[in-house]
């Protein structure tokens, strides 16, 4: 991080909420004013499936280490749309290094580059992730210095979707076996081929393949369009 960026962060920290909006944030917000019609069939929806790795499990404090994502259009994973970014962090957490094995990031990207590319990339697509709330909070903090407030896209959690499809709407996750709806066990149950885990892009890729399968399942029980999918 350059000294200038550090200063910027301090400035933003002190006057949080008053950051001027970057042009690309305005563009993002404008694009998202147009809503997806409820009757648009699933096969016509665009999804961006993403995952992040962080320095720890505290979404208020911990920092992004890496980001990975891929797009689904017409129920097809578009491999050439995949993205993977690494970041410089100042918090070095021993535990997380053990999991991700990322010590020295290769070709880290600047926050501004990421913010602009990311918002362009997610467009007004449906954001999908496993336990996505956590990732979005961390990303939100990353984007805050550019006047970004909160996500305007429709958001879909694969953990929620999977429980809903298997157990119905009102199932309480806490009553199940621990880890029953973790990405690992879901991939195993749905026969998604698992290779190396614990990279953001790798997990995003797994989640995307899982989503393809879940969407087909959903369609079979009559969840066929945007409205019923996002219910």
């Amino acid at each position: 991080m350059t000294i200038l960026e550090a200063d910027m962060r301090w400035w933003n920290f002190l006057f949080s909420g008053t950051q001027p909006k970057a042009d690309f944030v305005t563009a993002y917000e404008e694009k998202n004013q147009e809503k997806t019609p409820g009757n648009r069939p699933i096969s016509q929806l665009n999804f961006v499936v993403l995952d992040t790795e962080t320095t720890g499990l505290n979404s208020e404090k911990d920092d992004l280490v890496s980001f990975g994502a891929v797009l689904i259009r017409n129920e097809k994973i578009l491999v050439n749309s995949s993205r993977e970014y690494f970041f410089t962090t100042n918090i070095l957490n021993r535990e997380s290094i053990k999991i991700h094995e990322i010590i020295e990031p290769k070709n880290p990207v600047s926050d501004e580059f990421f913010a602009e590319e990311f918002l362009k990339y997610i467009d007004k697509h449906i954001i999908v992730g496993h336990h996505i709330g956590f990732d979005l909070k961390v990303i939100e903090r990353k984007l805050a210095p550019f006047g970004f407030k909160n996500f305007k896209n429709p958001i879909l959690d694969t953990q929620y979707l999977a429980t809903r499809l298997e157990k119905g709407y009102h199932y309480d996750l806490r009553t199940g076996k621990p880890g029953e709806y973790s990405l690992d066990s879901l991939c195993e149950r749905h026969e998604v081929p698992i290779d190396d885990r614990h990279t953001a892009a790798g997990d995003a890729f797994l989640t995307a393949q899982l989503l393809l399968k879940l969407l087909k399942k959903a369609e079979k029980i009559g969840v066929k369009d945007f409205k019923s999918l996002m219910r």
Partner: protein
Amino acid sequence: MSNVIIRRVKEFLKLYPPFSFLEDAPLEEVAESVEIRFFSKDELLFSKGDQAQNCFFVLRQGSVTLLDTRDDKKSIIEVCDEGDVFGVLALLGQRPYILSAQATEDSLVYAVPVSVFEKLLKENSRVSLYFAAGFASGQVVVRNDLSESQKARSVLQKNQEDRGLLIFTGRSDFNYSKDVLSCGPQTSIKEAASLMESKNVGSIVIVNELFHPLGIITDKDIRNRLVSKGLPNTTPVSDLMSSPVLTKKQDSDFSDLYLTMVKSRLHHLIFTENGTPESPVTGVLSDHDLLLSQGNSPAVLIKALMNTEDIAEMAAIRNRAESLLRYYLENEVTMDFVANIISEINDIIIEKAIRISQNQLEKEFPEQSQVKFCFVSLGSEGREEQLLRTDLDNAIIFEDVPENAFEKTQQYFLEMGEKIVEILLACGFQPCPAKMMANNPLWCQPLAVWKNYFSDWILSPNQNALMKATIFFDFRAIYGTKRFISVLREHIYREISSKNIFLNFLAKNALLNPPPLGFFRNFILEKSGEQKDKFDIKLRAMMPLADIARLLILSHNVVGINNTFRRFEKLAELEPNHSELMREAGKAYEILMRMRAIEGITHNNSGRYINPEKLGKLQRQMLKNTFYPIDELQKIIKVRFQLDYFGS
């Protein structure tokens, strides 16, 4: 820029031929282009007779069975395992599948686009040999190594020889001409052409005194080669013929015939007694014969469309229409005919979409569904000129209803418009960026409001109004109460006749588009952005012509001709002193439509931006020739509508 996701796809592919033959860089290119799809148990990936998709498949996980259906009986031809490649018929061009593929378990499948792989087929001889060997031996699936169980399966399979025929629809299905029209090498082009005309065939085989084939000439060759070289029609055929010719024996393995023909990109194949050029000719097979035998005639497509309510199937049929379109364009079928067929197909799809939407809303809106309405297409679709599925422009005109019923009625038609537009998008059409669509409240209005719109545009022709006029004046009824259209049209002519100056504004607008050629007679190219150094064929050549045709036809009070080239034909009648020019303008427009559609189909885009560098010399000259009538017509309009005295 490789990342984990691309690397994983790559590592998987690398394990299996033909991908294992690839160097790292081309393999990465293939991996990047992959699209991953999921098929649940029993789902069909493709069906026998479907147009081949623009990709072939590699099974990532699960199990897929290739089936043949004959007389409603299904027989298993192959069971694919992880890493198997199937659906490779796509590599032979847009031919129909001869087997069906069905997932027998939940399966993840990698789809590899043909466009990416075609290049490799040319560059890497091992890869092309691998595929060619597969085709020639009659295999649909290119297998890695036959595992023991697979070996057992193929041994158990009877009729091994039949397999060759299974790939293609079978030789007996093809009609080829046995009665070959032929002539000697010294025959003049003029004579050859009249022979072809009298027999009503498109090609003639040039033979020696022993009836051995020397070459072939098609009517297209005569036009292109004779014209481009400026030769006299007394030139002997031997100077112009394609030679040597591809020859085969009639009873040679059909997959072999097919592959030779497709790979060589030749339109004709000649059968001889022993299969070499050194024996007498016995028949000619053209790719036209092949296409007809594949059931891709417009009548078949239209019938199939009429009989389905299934949106995915409608989309599939529209895709098949596109390969028909390509064939027509390449073979110079008249534009009038092509535009007619494609518009007909588009209209049926729209009609279907309307019916489906009406049915879905009937219960919720019992009263409103009784209100009369008319669904209209605008812009290029309104002019019956939309060959590619470019932007949708459409609107709904409904009956005037009492004020207290308005809100609910508009809500009904808006919801209907929304549904219709969604179906059309699913059928591969593109949304209008300016939102001139039936799901926009502005363009979903009762007749009275529409009359006001047109009156407003005519009475205060500012830039915005004129822009709308150019799109909305080309409206055409697709479905519903078509009377609304004639009412509206009469209204427009009445308004224009009481405010003739509107036409002067429209004329001025028609001349706004920049000229296609610069001072030094070179193309004016885009200066920046993604389309830098390309020629905008729509803005600079087609729009000026369409605008002029509309203007003149309005000034003559002619009703009911929407098509630009038919408008010019009509104008040639109405203005005898300019008839030559009008006809040329119509021809020019046809040529431009054809060029744009070919560009669009080749590059899978709107075809709007053409790279003049990539055009052949003849095409470039043809394109430039289309500009001449634009120039002349613009001059006439300037004088006729006194634009030099008409302040801005």
